[in-house]
Structures are given as C-alpha cells and as structure tokens.
C-alpha cells in the first residue's frame, strides 16, 4: 500500500512489516496528515510483533508531520504486544534531534540512526 504526493511517498511493505517514508513532507495541518496517520495505525495492526519505519530517505518533515508521529507514539503505547523500530539518517540533521523525542512517549519505540 502506497500513499503518494507531489514530493513524497509513504509505502507499507507488508511482507517485511515495514513502512518507508521518502521525499519531502510538508502537508498543511493535522487533517492533511490523517491519511498517513491512518496508514500507520493500519500497519501496526497488520504487522507482526515489530513494525519497522524507515525515515532515512525523508529529507524534510514539517511540524504538523512530527505532531502526527507523536500521536502515533501515544496510540502505540496502548497497543498490546507491538513495538516499532524507527530508522533515521544522521546526515539529515532534523532527524537525529526530533525523532529522539518520540522515545519520550513510549518505551515501545526504538530509534536507530544510520
């Protein structure tokens, strides 16, 4: 399942329990992120125990986008038996700083920076 916009794509690869974010995400407001949020919720439901989220190819994410990820972290807290591994990139400076904040919401998220 793939969501595509002008400069971005979010792809759920079910066989490998993986979501891949690519490009530049600068949608306006929480409501425009609803589709992506719903995909995250659906993916965690379909995934086996661990869902991988690869953000290393996401060059830019605006504030509304990080808020949606925070909401997903809060949601994940109450999903039994599921964990998430987020992969970010050290070469995209916002990722090292901002993705780390998601760990404050739940211990079910693990962050790897490559």
């Amino acid at each position, binding site marked *: 399942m793939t969501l595509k916009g002008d400069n971005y794509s979010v792809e759920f690869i079910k066989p490998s329990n993986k979501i891949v974010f690519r490009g530049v995400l600068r949608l306006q407001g929480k409501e425009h992120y609803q589709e992506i949020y719903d995909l995250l919720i659906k993916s965690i439901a379909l995934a086996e125990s661990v869902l991988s989220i690869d953000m290393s190819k996401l060059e*830019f*994410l*605006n*504030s509304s986008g*990080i*808020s949606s990820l*925070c*909401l997903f972290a*809060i949601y994940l807290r109450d999903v039994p038996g599921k964990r998430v591994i987020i992969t970010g990139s050290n070469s995209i*400076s*916002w990722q090292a*700083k*901002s993705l780390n*904040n*998601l760990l*404050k*919401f739940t211990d079910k998220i693990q962050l790897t920076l490559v």
Partner: protein
Amino acid sequence: MENLDPDKIRSSIDSLLKDNGPLRAIYDSAETVEQLVGLTRNLMQVVDSTQRDLADLRLMHESTLDHATNVENELEEKNARITELTQKLRKYLPDALYDQVMGGRLEAESPHQRKRLTILFSDIVGFTTLTDHLEPEMLSELLNSYLDAMAGLVNKWGGVIDKFIGDAVMVFFGDRDGANIQLETEKCVLMALEMQQQMSLLRQRWSENGLPGDLRMRIGINTGYCTLGNFGSEKRMDYTIIGGQVNAASRLEHLAPPGGILISGSTYLLVKDKLECLPRGSIALKGIHHEVDTYEVIRQHDVNSPCTYLDETEHGFQLRALHFDKTTASRIEREELRVACQRALQIIESLDADSLDSSAADEALDPATQLEQVREEGAP
C-alpha cells in the same frame, strides 16, 4: 461509611464546587453517601485521564516546538550557506546573469537579446610556441599570474569576463542595466592601457624568476551590437555574446602590434576625447559589409586638452606628433587634424591680432609670404 456525616460531606463539596455549576448539579443529584463516593471515584478517574492527556499534550507541544526549532535552525544554516555560495558565484557570473538567476527571471526572460557592447580580446604573442618549451609548472605559474592580474583589472573596471581561452581573455563592457556605452567603452580602453602597464610589471617579475621576460600582449577592441544570452545545451549553458562584432574584436586583436592596443572606428568615436590614438588604416572584416577604420591607442589625453593632437599649456600649446597619410586618413582623422590646426592658429592669431589688424595689406599676402615678412622684420 455509616459514620460519615452527609451534611459535612455536602458542605465540603459545596465549598469545593462553588464555581463549577455542572459538577455541582451532578453531586446534588446524589442522594446517598454511596452515590457520592461513586461519583467521586468516577471524577478521580476523569481527572487522572485528563492529567495523562495533559502530560501527553505538553510532551507533544515540546516535541513539536523542538522540531520547529531544529528545522528553523537548519533553515538558517542553509540560508547562510546559500548566501556564502552566492557571494562566491557572483565573482564568476556576469552581473546581468547573476541578477537573472537570483531574481528567478532566467526562465521568464527572453533567452537572447541584442545589446550595444564593447568587446575586448587579448592574448600573449607566441604563447602557444612557449607551451612546447616550458615545463608545465613554470607554464602554470606564468599563466596563472597573468590571468590573475588581468582578471583583477577586469573586476576593478567593472567588465565581464566572457571566457579565458588558454592565454586569451575575452571581456565585454556595457551589459549592466542602464549602462552608458560611452562611459563603458572609455573604461574598457583605459583598462586595456592598464593591462599593458601591468604586463610590463609582470615581464619584470617573470624575468627575475627565470621565466621568459620578453612576452608581449596584443589587445583588440570593438564596439557594436551583439547577441547576448545563454547558449549551449540543456545541461551546460554559457552566458556569452556572439556575432560579427565579436569576431571583429578578435580580428583586431590579431592585427594589433605586440604590446599595442588596436581599436575600431566605432570604439574610437566613443573614446577620442579621452585617449590619444593614431590611425592605422582601414581593414575589411568578415561579416561586416564596409571597411573598418582602425586606430592604435597611444595614451590617455591630458584631461585639460580639448583636441587629440593639441595639448594647451599655460603659455601656449604643444602639438603632438602628426603622422598624416592622405591615402589612409579617415574623415574622423582629417576632422581631428583640422580642429587641432584651427585651435593652434586661433592661439597664434590672438597674440598677433593687433599687428595683423594694423596692416590691411598683409591680408592680401599668402601665408608663406606673411611668414617670410615677419621673419625679415625680426618681430618678437
């Protein structure tokens, strides 16, 4: 629970909920102590949940603020980097192209335009032969010091370096918005004079460093309408000028004497008040239908002198060396000479006005007889 005094409980609740009408109404609906306890338990659960939500909201707010700050800082760093790069870019791009790129007008504007420009070509005589004899390191030192000096002068005089072709330099003036072609051309030719002076200094330096010290530079300058714009392929564009006038400037450079500056008649007309030039005949140039007058630039005029061939001084004037060839002299040159001679005569006649006026007979004599008569009289 039976020991609890319902009135005391109600009194406590009244004081707690005095400002909360809806909650007070719920408590008022409780008839027994058990119902009051149940309501309080529910309320505490709501409070707990609300506190958790509030903590999450605070965390979300902080995370979003952190992220926004990170992105803003990154943006600022990138802006600073872009500013640094654009400042560097500015040195390499013509002003007009830089403005087009930075103003986002590159796509919108017509890719080519016609402009009246003054074009300069220069090269070192015999440089190609030299490349076969010199070690690459020495050649590199020689070429870099030469191009560096010339580029510095172009920058100083406000020209645009179109390209370096080995030891050859192609420069043009007049591309700025609202440029005055006369001023731009004067700057171009004055720059050429400074380039030749700079070349003398370089020759001295090269000689001291064991490099060839006898190299001479030729310069050709022409003024005319050129096609200016971006030429090339989709992936590699050059902001350059093309046209017959550009070729003419290149041809003038090839015809210039070593160490000299050869300019066309159209350039000469724009600088003749500022620079002393000698006519060098007319030449036929490919792409230009008529013959082109050529002039060799000698030096900058005395700023107080109104004529090309005449420098007026406090006590009279000084005529410059005249090289008049009636077979090659152009109309411009003839006019220049006529003006210089007339001005010289005016100055002489103003001194002798009284004596000339006193002898009406003198007027009938031809100039040679007049001169002989004055000599015989021994007049001062």
